[in-house]
């Protein structure tokens, strides 16, 4: 999440006050990402310091201060929009770790572990879908945010399905012990530069 750039985008529409920015930020993202007012002013202070935004006067930060975007801010915003987020190295995913561990922990049924997580994910997807059915019908920002969340959760359930099938096949035709999941997988991930 890049709060500074979203604030810059709101300022690109015209000069605005801090409180107004907070309201518009929350409304524009379907109120899924609440933002506290202190964070708004802190971010605006940083944008001003970096020359990406400027305010009416040099007085203390507060509700009276109106901000606008600078030409440098506009350039920074355009560049940010077109810069892909870093997706090159796989995040160290807790769920992936749990399934890797379940697959080799004696006395653990990995399929049962997978099913427990699948159930939870689908329940979560049902909740997001209720939101889509209700409020998100008339709120484009919220609909986009809800879609993004549903696709993300959907990807995780698909991975669980694939893991389930893969483990089942492996159990039917056990591979050589040398390919046990964790020892092989972890160093390889590290080589890729796992982050977080």
């Amino acid at each position: 999440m890049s709060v500074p750039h979203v604030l810059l985008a709101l300022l690109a529409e015209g000069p605005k006050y801090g409180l107004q920015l907070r309201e518009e930020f929350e409304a524009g993202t379907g109120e899924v990402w609440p933002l506290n007012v202190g964070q708004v002013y802190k971010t605006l202070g940083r944008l001003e310091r970096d020359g990406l935004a400027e305010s009416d006067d040099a007085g203390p930060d507060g509700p009276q201060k109106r901000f606008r975007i600078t030409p440098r801010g506009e350039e920074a915003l355009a560049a940010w929009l077109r810069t892909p987020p870093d997706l090159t190295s796989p995040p160290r995913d807790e769920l992936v770790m749990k399934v890797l561990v379940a697959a080799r922990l004696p006395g653990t049924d990995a399929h049962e572990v997978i099913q427990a997580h699948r159930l939870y994910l689908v329940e979560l997807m049902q909740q997001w879908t209720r939101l889509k059915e209700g409020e998100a019908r008339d709120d484009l920002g919220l609909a986009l945010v809800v879609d993004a969340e549903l696709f993300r959760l959907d990807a995780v359930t698909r991975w669980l399905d694939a893991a389930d099938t893969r483990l089942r096949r492996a159990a039917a035709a056990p591979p050589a012990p040398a390919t046990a999941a964790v020892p092989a997988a972890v160093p390889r991930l590290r080589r890729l530069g796992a982050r977080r």
Partner: protein
Amino acid sequence: MSGPGPGRDGAGEGASAADNVLQLRGVSKTYGQEPARVHALGWVDLSVQAGEMVAVMGPSGSGKSTLLTIAGSLEEPTSGDVLVCGMALAGMPPGRKARLRRRVIGYVFQDFNLLPGLTAVENAALPLELDGVAVPKARAAALAALEALGVADRADWFPDQLSGGERQRVAIARAVVGDRRLLLADEPSGALDSVNAEEVMRLLHEACARGVAAVVVTHDAQLAAWADRVVFLRDGRISGQTARPPGPESLLMPREIR
């Protein structure tokens, strides 16, 4: 893990049996003879109430489609009972069973299955006409169903003049036309793109809000998430089901962002 939360109001269980449009009790289905016998379903218990939408998920070969054809009385279970609107299908005379199938149960298929030589309204009226309802009355009911699905203006169009999304709306209209109580759908959003697929699920869910009970088989979690309850099948057995989820408000609790 989320257990049964305070929002759970016992869909499918705890409700009086009279509300159950569909009940499967200890239903099993096997094909073939030993030693090549295949167990498609093993002891499945499932109840679906009026107004409830249940999605059935599972890998291919898990028994999803078998469950649907048994629920729709198109196939008989090897053992166990199937009750539709409280009536046991076992031992029902074939004529009566066929009538029940025509009057109470609606089907939605992946590939829509509309008859190409009939218009949208004729397609939607067909189940009623087959049941002996007079043509003008059947047509009026079909128009009402098309209206509810937002395709009344396509009533006199032929299937090949309709978009995929419109075709599926007509197919849903045909499935709910008249006073159908049970809607059975097998991958109803078929090859539609995700926005149109979502629209199909929205319409099915709206049909349930009007009192229909639905069982929707799908392998797609995003579509299953439209259901009030999601049942997971594995090797012919129910391996889990979702609790009725709490409302979406719980998703909007303030969270830290950076």
